[in-house]
């Protein structure tokens, strides 16, 4: 578990000081904390991937603004989003097997869904606290 988490930290975090602080903390985390920590790291990664997509999409929109340039549809943007995720994972993970990349992507998405559900629960609790 620690090795996986170290890999994830290296993958997700760019700030060296933060990276070493996180790796140091692994020695004092219990198993439950490590699992939650892994989820948050995945979330950080997915946020970064999304931002990469936004940058690409902005360039496509700039292109569309030119007379005679192709008009992209929402499906085109969706494809670019998927490609961005794959490119990111390929580059960061070193995996080349398409199936494994797809599996990795699906895993990430399922974690995202869990995180969203987690957020909903927190909102409900917040509402209860607010009475």
């Amino acid at each position, binding site marked *: 578990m620690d090795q*996986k988490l*170290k*890999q994830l930290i*290296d*993958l*997700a975090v*760019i*700030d060296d000081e*933060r990276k070493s*602080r*996180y790796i140091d*903390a692994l020695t*004092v985390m*219990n198993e*439950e*904390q490590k*699992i*939650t*920590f892994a*989820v*948050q*790291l995945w*979330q*950080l990664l*997915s*946020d970064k991937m*999304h*931002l990469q*997509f*936004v940058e690409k*999409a902005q360039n496509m*929109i*700039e292109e*569309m*603004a030119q007379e005679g340039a192709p*008009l992209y549809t*929402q499906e085109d*943007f969706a494809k670019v989003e998927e490609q961005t995720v794959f490119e990111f994972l390929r*580059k*960061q*993970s*070193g*995996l080349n097997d398409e199936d*494994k990349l797809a599996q*990795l992507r699906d*895993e990430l998405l*399922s*974690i*995202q869904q*869990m*995180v969203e559900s*987690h*957020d909903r*629960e*927190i909102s409900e*609790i*917040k509402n209860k*606290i*607010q*009475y």
Partner: protein
Amino acid sequence: MANRSEAAQALFSNSEYNQQVERQATHWGGEVGKQVQDVSAEQEVEIHQVLDFYYTHLREKYSTDPESLTDAELAAARVAQYEGNYSPRQQAEIYSTMEVMYKQMSDPESDFSKQKKIYERDERGRWKLSADGEQMVAGVNRQRIQIFENLTGIDPVAAGNFKEKDRFARAKEAGSRFEAVSIALTGRGRGGKSVEEMNEDEFNAARMKGFQDERGRLTVQARIDTISAQNLESQKTSALEKMTEIIGRYPTGRSTERVRRVLDVLEMDIAMAQTERELAEIIRKANTPELTEVVNTAEYVKNPEQVILEDLLAEDLDRMVARAKAGEVSQNPEQIMQTIAELDREIANEGNDDRRRDLERQRAFAKDAYSLVEGDVASKVLQLETRNVENITNLMGSLDEADVVAGLEEELDIEVPAGTTLDDRIKALDRRLSRRSKSSLLSSVASMLNKGAKKRSRKPSRPRNVGASTAGRRRP
């Protein structure tokens, strides 16, 4: 250039359109938007407002010198005259125009910023967005996001779990960025280029420098923006009232101030803790074999913007690490405060910048630990909601005796002569409570205090000058 000049003159001489924008764009945020009820229609109106605002600037700037108009500005003047029901291409053009506007608004000394008074000076002489500027920035960003979503089907800010990104976007877009850029551009008076003269690379370099210079402030700004002060305050007040009401039923001596102090560090950590366990359970059941295949080949290009973004996105992770680390340090808030005070002294006397930064990091960590220890007390306070006397007794048993005693003295208006020992104060309280209390609850309080006295006699007292800090304290 004749064509450009003719095109510009034709654009700027559209008298019908000119009259229309004079009515609508003389002052940002006029009546038009307020009259519109339908949301989508309101968005269209706002796009018009934004573009008209820019159009009037271009007309004023170039009406006597149309040949100086850049291609992007010429396109913007044309786009401003689109009437609505925008096609995808038109939306892309509007998006592109807003990028041009955005760039010019980034510099408080650009012609656009100056002419439209987008910035003003604060009391310290620094640039800040004016009221019109705030609305303009908000309007441009709102519509850029809306158009992006229209075209791509994806919300650039809110997709997935992106509340942190929203926070980042707000900090980035809502003014700090502009001021940061203006700071980066201070060289313009000494031969630096104006933002209009910069190419894309130069502009990005200036922007990045602004981010780098203002990293700390941007991060703080973002946090302030995210934790909507009003919202948090209302949650705290509501929780405070509820707790005070519950606690008020029992003479536990916990003053409102004490509860408020706990609430200050409480925020939403308790809610997080409650659901984290459940989430961890779900994840534990999930099979994640691919994690093992991930290797360490990260090749991020580090730029200040990404680092700031990471600061914001990683807050939850930072908190988890702090919580895990807090398990290693003292659980006694007083000891932690003592450490913080020692670190403060060291920081004040440290001449080496690197060492001082290291000490400041240690101090920040100690403060986190303090919050967590206090937060732990806070979570126990919340148990009061069960209205279980046994819980209350346990809670009080886990608190500092001296605090409980001082609180009870305060509650009962007992005046304590300076120098009275804690033992004597507890005995006095016991006598007072025995006379006053008839309920089983007060008996349990007294019993707890008695137990506390016995417990104290078996172990050394805490390293705190109880008499000096609490004896003789009176309700204000």
